[in-house]
């Protein structure tokens, strides 16, 4: 069975190839970066396509049946009708699977299950990174606002922080929002 991986994340692709390597009936094909999904499907003739849902060209794959009557190998979304919670997990993790219509349906679920696990782990790492990044950014905005208060209102650092905290509590906002507003009103740029 030939599986085309349409995923631009090199690390995730490497891990997935590793996970699928145990099954010697599987040949993994990769989508060269920059090549369109449709061209790769036409050129490599996979039986199954695993697609990162962040890709915008998924719509092209699904439209094959309507638009290319001449294409001998249209492709359809794999759906496990009996297991909606598995489908939900796959979509939430951001991966979908397509079968080539007209070939006997391969047992795609274990493959998709491996992909879902990888995509989910990747998503969690990403989310953790994002929130760490946001926290760092917020900390630097608050620091910038404190510096401004210390310089222009001659507050000590603890006083500046207390001032921000008090304003936040009385206006029902977060400290970082008060800090951002202060800097904005003062005409100082904050990083977005």
């Amino acid at each position, binding site marked *: 069975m030939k599986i085309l991986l349409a995923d631009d994340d090199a690390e995730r692709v490497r891990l997935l190839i590793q996970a699928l390597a145990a099954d010697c009936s599987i040949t993994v094909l990769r989508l060269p970066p920059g090549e369109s999904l449709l061209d790769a499907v036409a050129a490599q003739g996979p039986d199954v396509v695993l697609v990162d849902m962040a890709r*915008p060209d998924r719509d092209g794959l699904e439209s094959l049946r309507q638009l290319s009557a001449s294409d001998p190998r249209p492709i359809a979304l794999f759906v496990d009708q009996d297991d909606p919670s598995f489908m939900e997990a796959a*979509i939430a993790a951001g991966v979908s699977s397509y079968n080539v219509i007209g070939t006997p349906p391969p047992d795609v679920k274990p493959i998709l299950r491996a992909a879902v696990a990888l995509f989910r782990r990747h998503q969690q790492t990403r989310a953790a990174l994002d929130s760490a990044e946001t926290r760092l950014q917020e900390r630097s905005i608050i620091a910038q606002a404190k510096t401004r208060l210390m310089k222009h209102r001659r507050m000590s650092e603890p006083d500046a922080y207390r001032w921000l905290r008090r304003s936040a509590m009385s206006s029902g906002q977060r400290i970082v929002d008060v800090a951002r507003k202060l800097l904005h009103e003062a005409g100082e740029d904050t990083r977005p």
Partner: protein
Amino acid sequence: MTGKPPVRFGLLRLADSAPAVVALQRGLFSELGLTVELSVEPSWANIVDKLAYGLLDAAAMLPPLALAAALGLRGPPARLLVPMGLSGGGNTITVRREVADAIAGSAAPQGAMAKGRALGEWLHAQPAPPRFAVVHAFSTHNLLLRYWLAASGVDPDRDIATVVIAPEQVEAALADGRIVGFCAGAPWGELAERNGSGRHLMGTSDVWANHPEKCVAVAEPWANANPLALQRLLRGLLQAQRLCEQPGAADWVAHLLAGQPLRLPVTAVRACLPGGSATERIRFRAGLAWYPRRSQAIWFLTQMRRWGWVGSEIDLPAAAGQLYRPDLLAAAADAEGLAWPDTVTEPDGGFCDGAISDRTKISNDRN
């Protein structure tokens, strides 16, 4: 409404998503006691899958795709409802400059049919079918493009090759010659014109005057479980449509769409909004853009059957009636002071070939 999870609303990077962005960022939803989260998706397939599996509650949607998904033409039948129209018009048919020059000849053809015949002559002279892009097979764009081509004597299955390219990528595809033309939503045609990569041939409202464009699709289980939230969502969107329709609003709406989360090109978007300078502009309230007319759903289905995508076993009016639910909008429309249209006497608008939309008699939409 504290404690209630936010309503998850999906959309693509398109100017006709404006009502959702305006309702959120102008605080219209929160004034109604509703928390809404926007989820910008890279593909229509994502929107349908997430609606079908409960990862989105509502979304801006292509009416033909909503119909296709509900009928199970792209997977298992998705339990969707369309309680409201989001926009009308706004798409352009744009071609590469040399194509526009070739079909213009000495005098630029006037009118949709003359343009279609001139394009047909050029197409028939090409050694291989030139590539045109639409944003999805089941899109308003594809169906209107095909209708116009067919009316002009062009066979859309043989004289052109249709490819699907995401709206935000069509301009680049036109510029580097992968396609000779496209039919896509705002602001991408306007951007091609401004960048010099393409020429605006006509708008889709020249194919079907007053045609509906995006609709609001909701997940049926969510709608059934959250009638009050649905009501508030629709009211917020109706209010936002009213704001977006005002010609004087084009500036601030365009700036809102240029910011997070859509990051659209501000000048091109401004041109396509109701107060803008483009010839094809989006309608948010004009032409009853808000009203989910079943006769329009039937027209889309009829076209889908015409091209062989919907089998004869499917009862088209029944399918339209099951998906399109204007009754769900009635209370929100009343609360916003919108007069309920008389769908029997108010016409849908004519077509480029002189046809009038076949308004299959579905009176009393409200019940």
